């Protein structure tokens, strides 16, 4: 049980359209796994299947050993999820959001208190802890959302474009948090459009038109595609297709 994610020919069709086409890969526990692809390549569909939000059409997948067809509720206890859409309650304060999601994950009163204090301390949000989330800058909200996704110490956290629309400094801070979480043993499954972020990952997969076209370490990918940047790798793969 040292694999956090295992998939085998995982497929999702919407009518005739094949959103994810027989993707097969695995992610080790504690790994930072970059999940790249152009818009519409099928990343979000894949993530939603792995989180139990979407039933696969065919193929298999196991998350922390649990089956995505039959054990979705067990999966939900061990994963964290941060979607493209900002998903904290803007009309609740920082502390109330942590308390609500923590409570939903079954944390007891003492744990909730400790966890809230820890997150507020860690993100340096002491001065705004009792302010509505709506009043925070976007970068702060994203970091808070990430912390809330980790509130129940999940084994795996799925991040769907967590840094969209955020400035470079905040992105850097965000990745520091990702590293910290990975150091504590959390598996990170992250999608991004920023190629510099792809360099931070242990391994990267690149999806094109619903299929995984490449999967390796960033340096391995650059070597086999003969370029010196992840951007180059991405360009070669993305240009090869769907230029209809």
């Amino acid at each position, binding site marked *: 049980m040292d694999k956090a994610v295992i998939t085998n020919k995982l497929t999702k069709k919407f009518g005739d359209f094949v959103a994810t086409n027989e993707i097969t890969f695995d992610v080790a526990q504690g790994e930072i796994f970059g999940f790249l692809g152009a818009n519409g390549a099928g990343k979000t569909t894949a993530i*939603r299947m792995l*989180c*139990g*939000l*979407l*039933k696969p059409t065919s193929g298999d997948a196991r998350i922390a050993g649990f089956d995505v067809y039959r054990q*979705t*509720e067990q999966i*939900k*206890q061990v*994963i964290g*999820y941060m*979607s493209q*859409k*900002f*998903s*904290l*309650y*803007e*009309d*609740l304060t920082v502390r*109330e959001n942590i*308390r*609500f*999601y923590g*409570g*939903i*994950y*079954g944390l007891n009163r003492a744990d909730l208190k400790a966890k809230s204090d820890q997150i507020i301390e860690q993100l340096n949000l002491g001065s705004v802890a009792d302010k*509505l989330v709506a009043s925070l800058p976007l970068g702060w909200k994203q970091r808070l959302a990430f912390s809330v996704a980790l509130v129940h110490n999940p084994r795996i956290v799925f991040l769907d474009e967590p840094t969209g629309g955020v400035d470079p400094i905040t992105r850097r801070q965000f990745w520091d948090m990702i590293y910290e979480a990975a150091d504590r043993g959390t598996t990170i499954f992250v999608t991004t459009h920023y190629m510099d972020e792809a360099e931070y990952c242990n391994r990267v997969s690149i999806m094109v038109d619903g299929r995984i076209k490449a999967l390796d370490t960033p340096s391995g990918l650059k070597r086999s595609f003969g370029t010196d940047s992840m951007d180059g790798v991405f360009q070669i793969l993305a240009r090869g297709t769907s230029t209809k």
Partner: protein
Amino acid sequence: MTRIRFIIEKEFKQIFRNAVLLRMMLAAPVLQLILLAYAANFEVKNLNIVVVDQDHTTYAQRLVGKFRHIDNFRLKGYVPAYKPAYRELLASRADLILLIPPHFERDLGKENRASIQLLVNAIDGSKAGIASGYAQTIIRNFNDEIRTETVAVQQPATGGRLEIENQYWYNPRLEYKTFMVPGILFELLILVGGMIAALNIVREKEIGTQEQLNVTPIRKHEFILGKLTPFVIIGLVQFTMGLLVGIFLFQIPVVGSVPLMYGFAFLFLLLCVGLGLLISAISETQQQAMFAVFFCLVLFILLSGLFSSTENMPTWAQYLNTLNPLRYIIEVGRNVMLKGSTFRDMQSQFVALLLMAVALISLASWRYRKTV
């Protein structure tokens, strides 16, 4: 179980923070109660009557005088002929035209019979019915008077005459408000229970928090109960306010048991929130939800017997009405409040409401999916 507590706590925080909505939820129903109870009124007053008097005799004047003395009528004036009178009717300046033909008095005296013509604007059917009813009574009255005057000389005792005396039970003064308030009180609960609950959940779908909740181990029944409870509580507060307005402002008699009314209000609120949850489960946007709730609301109200008697509706509508929760609860409201009906009397309504509440909540939980 503790998860439910966290949801309820969160809902209340959000509701209390949304000051505008909170004020609307609590103030609007009271305002509506006041407005509707005063304005939605079936009493026919201020009927404009135009007279075409082609006889110009004492009898004709006496007849017109009778209309003048009844509060419900307002004599707009005389016109010389039918044509201009008709024009008044077309322009909606007259509700009624009384046409007294030439030789009215002569015919009545000589031949003991004379005809007059009454034209009623019947666009509003029930108003027209009541108006012509009033007018006929006045004319009959006049007729009786003339008869007694002429006949009395020859035949003093006209024999036995049947007098009908009406006694109106439970609403002795035929107060329209007394009839309306119990109905409106319950009708308003659909607004909070149904509309606000439906919009609340669809809003979570729109902003994305619903998806976030769906990746948590939250269970269906926890989610449903957590969402249900706050709206039922607010609904009961609203019901209390409405009841107080009814009692103190409108002096509506509360003859029946107050706990029984609260019991029914609770059941009805469960049903409304169930409906709201079901609508939110099938809607993707607040617009869709709003439309669905509005559609149900208007249908329920029109068929409910709030404004018109259900017994007079066509058979198919009455069948349709067996699925109308508002109809049952209005029956309960009126009977318990004004008549003092007991639970035993309201059993069939109870069963109907209970079945619908269970069906709606089950459907909503069945339809609520954590997957998309």
